[in-house]
């Protein structure tokens, strides 16, 4: 595990929906350039936790700090501007745009020109556009989507869509990328390619937090793992520590061997 500086602090956050406590007093830290995975059985509160970090939900208690500053309660687009960017559980992309258009539009955060600048085609706006195009092509090549460049997103197969989702995230130049189930619905080959891709994303200097069901993939890729059950953190540690943890095995009882990749 590479121990960089702490980039994200989750401090005792809880979220209630009416009487249901979806996330209950969860705390953990993420170090820079680390890959941290959040796992847990269905309904453990993983997705809620994920939305709390990306500020798509406001915590009922506790707070999330990014680089020492509170991000809980800010609008998602402000949080994205600070460098915390999420991808989505489903294959969420702009379906009626081409791969390249998707990634170009995702450069929005990096634009220097304002809306009026883009309207009148100012000098800054034109240099922004040129830079976005160049950077988008770089990301497309990085993700191995070169052949799909001008295809409509709606026509892409599952694996490429997921890659495009990550590409959209990368285009925003994030410091922390939140991946929601990046390996869901993938076959073995697609998963190993995606695992390698997430590894390369980290090599670009991006910290990654991911929520995932696929245990073998999580164990292979993560520096640290946080386990949730019924909204409570029941374990945290390296993949090896998690695989030996009694509480975790209990939570996955019935299919422990297969599902936690022993």
């Amino acid at each position, binding site marked *: 595990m590479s121990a960089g500086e702490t980039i994200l602090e989750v401090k005792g956050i809880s979220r209630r929906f009416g009487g249901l406590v979806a996330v209950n007093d969860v705390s953990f830290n993420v170090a820079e350039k680390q890959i941290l995975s959040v796992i847990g059985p269905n309904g453990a509160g993983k997705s809620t936790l994920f939305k709390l970090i990306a500020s798509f939900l406001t915590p009922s208690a506790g707070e999330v700090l990014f680089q020492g500053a509170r991000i809980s309660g800010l609008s*998602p687009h402000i949080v*994205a501007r600070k460098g915390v960017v999420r991808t989505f559980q489903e294959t969420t992309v702009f*379906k*009626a745009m081409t791969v390249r258009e998707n990634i170009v539009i995702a450069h929005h955060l990096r634009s220097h020109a304002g809306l009026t600048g883009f*309207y009148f085609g100012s000098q800054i706006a034109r240099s922004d556009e040129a830079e976005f195009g160049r950077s988008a092509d770089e990301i497309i090549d990085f993700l191995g989507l070169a052949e799909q460049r001008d295809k409509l997103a709606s026509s892409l197969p599952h694996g490429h869509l997921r890659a495009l989702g990550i590409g*959209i995230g990368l285009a925003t130049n994030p410091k922390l990328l939140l991946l929601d189930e990046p390996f869901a619905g993938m076959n073995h080959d697609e998963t190993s390619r995606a695992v390698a891709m997430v590894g390369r994303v980290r090599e670009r200097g991006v910290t990654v937090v991911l929520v995932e069901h696929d245990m073998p993939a999580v164990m292979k890729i993560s520096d640290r793992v946080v386990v949730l059950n019924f909204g409570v953190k029941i374990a945290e540690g390296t993949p090896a520590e998690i695989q030996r943890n009694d509480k975790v095995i209990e939570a996955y009882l019935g299919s422990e061997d297969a599902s936690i990749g022993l």
Partner: protein
Amino acid sequence: MSRSQTSTQLAILAAFLLAIFVVVPWIIAASGRFDLYYTLTSVALLSIASAGVWLTFYIGRINIGQGAYALMGGYVSAILVVQAGLSFWLTLPLAGMFCAAISVLIGLPILRLRGVYFAMVTLVLTEVARLTALALPITNGAKGMVSIPLPGPIGFGGFNLVPNFATLKTPNLAFYYLSMVLMCLCFGAMYRLVHSRIGKLCQSLQQNEELASSIGVNITLLRVIAYAISSFLGGLSGAIFVGIAQSIYPSSFTVTDSVNFMLNCFLGGLGYVFGPIIGTFLLYFGWDLLFQTGPYQLLIFSSLLIIFMLVLPNGLLSLNPFAGKKA
């Protein structure tokens, strides 16, 4: 975009401008059908209001409330001309801006709604506008405002850039030119908007708001801007209608008008900037042509509309990809 495509587009544009500014007035003068001026002026103005509705479609909102802003713009212009003695020309941008300002206040809460919920609220807006016009003392209630003076001249010193409409023998022709010029300006500006990065941002909103937000797009701001532009166009078009009719009543723009603005966009094609022009033309003339069928007019008209939408769900312009006007 290829060079030949660009030159085709320029040729179409030139032909269109020639048609509306030279050929049509010439044909009308030759045939003596001067009533057509009023019809075509209406089409131009309705298409401006529809362009606004089209823009709200472009950010993924079904807007059935444009009639409210047309009515509001009409009253603002009428009140400013009659009560404050302002020039009609000055009231045009003022009416538009008043509507835009009101739409920001209304839009901030309601633009959070999506799909049918936003549509329902906007549908109610038109009725609210009518009832407000009935109730307020300044709008003169159900009696409306009548005998509003025709637009005066614009000029400096002795030179008139735009003549005094009241002294013209054919104010219809003047209104025709005014509306056509404004329609061209409006759609030129819309074309630029859609083909700039802002158009892509609007599309990102239409396709997935959460994702747009997560890549840092200020979706609230963009929605409000689009809605304000839409309402500006609605108010502007309403104000000119009042200038032509020289009168306004609470029933000048009703829910039917709001629905028609939306239909114009559907008919022309939601994916095409110039869709509203084609759609308005078709709807307006289609309705008139069926006049002879008497009591069956509405039945035939609505059946045709249903068939049309089934056969051409992407609008009339989807028939002609060669025009290359796809937004």
